């Protein structure tokens, strides 16, 4: 290998190694608040009426009469 080329390789190596020593910048993701449209279902979900309906439905699914 020619000396000029050896220098080249060393230079590149040096540059690469220099990259390794850079301080890491890790961004921690913070879960945010829902930003989408409002689901009309939310006004009903968890209401006693709908819950009762869903409970009755499950009884029907699993019942053997």
């Amino acid at each position, binding site marked *: 290998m020619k000396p000029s080329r050896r220098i080249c390789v060393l230079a590149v190596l040096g540059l690469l190694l220099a990259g390794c020593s850079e301080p890491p910048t890790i961004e921690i993701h913070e879960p945010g608040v829902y930003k*989408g449209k409002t689901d009309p279902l939310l006004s009903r979900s968890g209401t006693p009426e709908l819950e009762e309906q869903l409970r009755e439905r499950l009884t029907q699914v699993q019942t053997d009469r």
Partner: protein
Amino acid sequence: MARMKFLCDAERCIECNGCVTACKNENEVPWGVNRRRVVTLKDGEPGEKSISVACMHCTDAPCSAVCPVDCFYTTDDGIVLHDKDLCIGCGYCFYACPFGAPQYPQQSAFGVRGKMDKCTFCAGGPEPDNSPEEYTKYGSNRIAQGKLPLCAEMCSTKALIAGDGDMVADIYRERMVLRGGRPQTWGWEKAYGAS
């Protein structure tokens, strides 16, 4: 307050795929997208077990936590849903999900993934309930009609149960008493915590 949960009783699941086609039927999910699938362990050997898997609608859902555009929301009864208009198809939720639930209509190596799609517990999405818009984007909204997910309602052996978690647990407990065996509640702890 009721907390909606899925439970797959591995003692009863026979991998008939009824839940998979019930989902296709109810939500007209296209070819290549599977909101629900059945996984078989020790296939063809003694000890073989099958489990039907979809989005479990986890407590503190990891998908929601990692979403960069915050498109997930949870209903009061614990159903995890998302807004497809916001979704950018980045795929983070897929990596976060312990059940591999999120699906992408586009899966070529360098292409855009397309909007994420997953099981909605048959509760549609953020559009007027049972409107054509909601149906085309998210599928059916059975919850708004007082019905439960069709996959569980149609399960051939009633292995897959969906509904108020307390009732689901009661049904399962009764079966356990009858069988006198070890519980086979695959995935429950992971999804809903130790309780």
